[in-house]
């Protein structure tokens, strides 16, 4: 008898709970204001729960995840610092020789043609004009050959007719550096006099003899020297990997007009 009463009570409770849930669901689904209130309430409850659980998680199985995020944060902070440095370089830095650098992003880059080119996301609105040099910290990229308002086209160093004036850092012997045409990491310097001492392993840097590229930008290392009796032909391994180019600097020589006017 008592057992039957208990079963009835449980059944009644189950019916009450089921119908109660049903009525609440109906109200939430059919009353816009009620739905808004319930969602607001559930969001606040969720927020409180997540906040409460956050501590426990970080203390146990999410510790590794936190470590990973901390490492990632550090890397991002370093990247931000680099970006700020680049921005500062773009806006304010002018070196002692009167060169200004404008940061640019590579939009398109070819490396498999006889005369390769790049498209950069800077144009006349950014102060870019034809004839400006394009460099990175690892070498010469090319020369601006056409400009639009927001973009410019750069004749890549990886072109048959795009020599740049370089010198051997150790001996100051200079000559034109040209792309070999066979590999994107190979170039050669011609017209270096035979009396100039050049040995494999020497560093090749920009000479600064043109008004296009600033001096002392490392370009590559000497890998071999051949002589025809009058001039040495120097093989160079380029430091710059054209296949991974993403950011470059366009060089504006503030004294460029003055220098060109004297030529």
């Amino acid at each position, binding site marked *: 008898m008592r057992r039957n009463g208990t079963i009835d009570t449980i059944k009644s409770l189950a*019916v009450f709970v089921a*119908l*109660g849930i049903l009525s*609440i669901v*109906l109200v939430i689904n*059919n*009353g816009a204001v*009620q739905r808004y*209130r319930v969602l607001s309430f559930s969001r606040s409850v969720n927020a409180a729960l997540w906040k409460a659980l956050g501590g426990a998680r970080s203390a146990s199985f999410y510790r590794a995840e936190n470590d990973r995020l901390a490492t990632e944060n550090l890397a991002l902070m370093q990247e931000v610092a680099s970006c700020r440095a680049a921005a500062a370089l773009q806006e304010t830095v002018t070196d002692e020789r009167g060169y200004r650098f404008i940061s640019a992003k590579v939009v398109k880059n070819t490396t498999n043609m006889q005369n390769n080119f790049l498209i950069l996301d800077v144009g006349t609105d950014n102060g870019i004009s034809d004839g400006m040099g394009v460099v990175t910290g690892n070498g010469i990229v090319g020369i601006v050959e056409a400009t639009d308002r927001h973009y410019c086209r750069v004749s890549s160093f990886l072109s048959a007719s795009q020599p740049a004036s370089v010198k051997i850092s150790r001996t100051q012997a200079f000559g034109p550096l040209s792309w070999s045409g066979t590999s994107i990491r190979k170039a050669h310097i011609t017209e270096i006099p035979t009396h100039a001492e050049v040995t494999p392993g020497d560093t090749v840097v920009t000479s600064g003899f043109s008004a296009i590229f600033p001096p002392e930008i490392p370009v590559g290392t000497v890998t071999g020297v051949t002589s025809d009796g009058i001039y040495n032909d120097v093989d160079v391994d380029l430091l710059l990997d054209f296949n991974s180019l993403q950011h470059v600097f366009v060089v504006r020589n503030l004294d460029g007009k003055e220098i060109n006017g004297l030529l």
Partner: protein
Amino acid sequence: MNKQSVIILSYVLIFLLQVVSDCFLDTGLYVHICLLPLVIIALPYKWKPGVVMPVAFALGLLADILSGGVLGVNAGASLVASSIRNPAYRYLVSTDGQLPAQIPSSVLLHTGPYLRYLSVVVILYLAAYILLDAPARGTASFFIARLAASAGASIAACYALNLLLSRN
């Protein structure tokens, strides 16, 4: 028409009166007249709670549908009222713990016990109704004021109808 049919028809009319009241009677922000508790009280006491509650829920839902209100408000309130009906009767009215064989009325139970019983069922019905309906403007003071005003009006209306039914 026998007496049983008349009683059933009377409560059907009370149910329809509730729908009409919800649809056309503008009682303002604070007053909601509910007559469904009278119908819930009248449901047979020989039915088990597991049957009474779904029936009351269905009646409330039907009222919501017919009156064009938010579905679930009257249904939920009817569920609460039907779940409290039997315990309230046993605690407030019955002397021997038994449920009534007939529909409780002021004539059958006398005014005092009947009013206490009716009041508890109506107040709980309204509390559930306002909680489901009032999130739009749900402050404690509003809840209490609305509950008090609605309970007063509803108990008066239900008692008047009870008197009317008892005479017949």
